[in-house]
């Protein structure tokens, strides 16, 4: 195959996968938006369900993991919250808002787990 043809094939392949990725992000974003909406009205279980769904649709969506971490934290599931925050930071290590949420979470988590016996 000539180099020009190879480039063309690669370009077409990239174009064909891009919409799929964009679709996943769009669907995940819709779930995240809905989750935020219901969380603001105090419906945290529904919000968690939506954010879990968002992370399944798009496992690279840092914001969805961040929101999920907050949801788990609010429900008192600190182990799951830690995992979700850490995943969010892994995906977007420079996001200051995620980092701030994680630091605040850690403060509570460390305080409650500092047992002597």
């Amino acid at each position, binding site marked *: 195959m000539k180099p020009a043809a190879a480039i063309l094939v690669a370009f077409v392949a990239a174009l064909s996968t891009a919409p799929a990725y964009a679709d996943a992000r769009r669907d995940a974003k819709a779930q995240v938006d809905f989750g935020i909406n219901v969380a603001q009205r105090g419906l945290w279980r529904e919000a968690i369900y939506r954010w879990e769904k968002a992370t399944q649709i798009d496992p690279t969506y840092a*914001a969805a993991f961040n929101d999920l971490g907050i949801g788990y934290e609010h429900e008192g599931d600190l182990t799951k919250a830690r995992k979700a925050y850490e995943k969010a930071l892994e995906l977007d290590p420079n996001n200051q*808002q995620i980092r701030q949420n994680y630091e605040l979470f850690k403060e509570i988590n460390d305080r409650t787990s500092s047992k002597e016996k």
Partner: protein
Amino acid sequence: MTGPAPKRSSAGLQTCRRAVLVAFTAAVSVLALACGPDYYEIPIETPIQPKLDVSPFQRVLVAGFISGGSEDVDANQETVRLLRSQLRTKSQLKVIDADILPLMEIAQDQTKAAGAVDEPSSGAHEGGQQTTVQTTPTADRPAQDKTMALSNKIKNEKDLEPYERLFANTAYWKRIGEEYQNPLIVTGTVLFVPDSKSGYVQRDEEIIDSFGRRVVRPVRQYMERKGFILRPKFVFIDGRTGATMYSESHREEILYNAQQNTPALSSYFELMDRIVPNFLSALSSQKIKGTRVLLK
């Protein structure tokens, strides 16, 4: 009949431009509203499960504390009062109103009694300040006890350490438990000691610059500071068996400007205020309020 088209006046042109500008601004605003912000601050309440299973208990006895340090505060009395009042409002357990146990004296009596039983002639007194006796392990005392040196005046952690054997005396605590119908017993040690530290501290200073503007800048200044350190250790004992269920230690300190005259009691409460939520979280579920940022 036709004539030349009238020229658009400059006022008309300006109106037209203004209309375009308004339309553009409106369009941008609508777009911004449609997109919305990318983050939302949301208040959350994190429920914290209690560290202890207190379901077998209906009552709690804050028995007393072995205390030392500053003489300005009776840390035993104040700690018992504070914890009882907190437990009354923030716990499901019924708080037993009983006389505060003088645990320091009890520990000393137990030591003397043990010494009298084991080695009647070995009650060594050093200038009336310490009670030192050799003991052998019994049901009431742990096997590791070799030499007990109970200082009559507790000034530091070293003085406090030998007293902690009292919490391992299951027979004693079981007896106390039976007396109060098997409650959860809260006891421990409290050390409240004065502290002073000198060194450079950074603080903000407000100055007027050459242009007459008010400017805040950080300055390092040598300061002599005085304050207190509070080190409580809470011991939770099962009143049915006399055994220790759980214990936790804390350390908080506060420093003031040396010129500031803060009463010891107010410092004690300020420091206890930081520790009490942790104490309560051992017994009852707590909700910690905070704010987080939801992202889109």
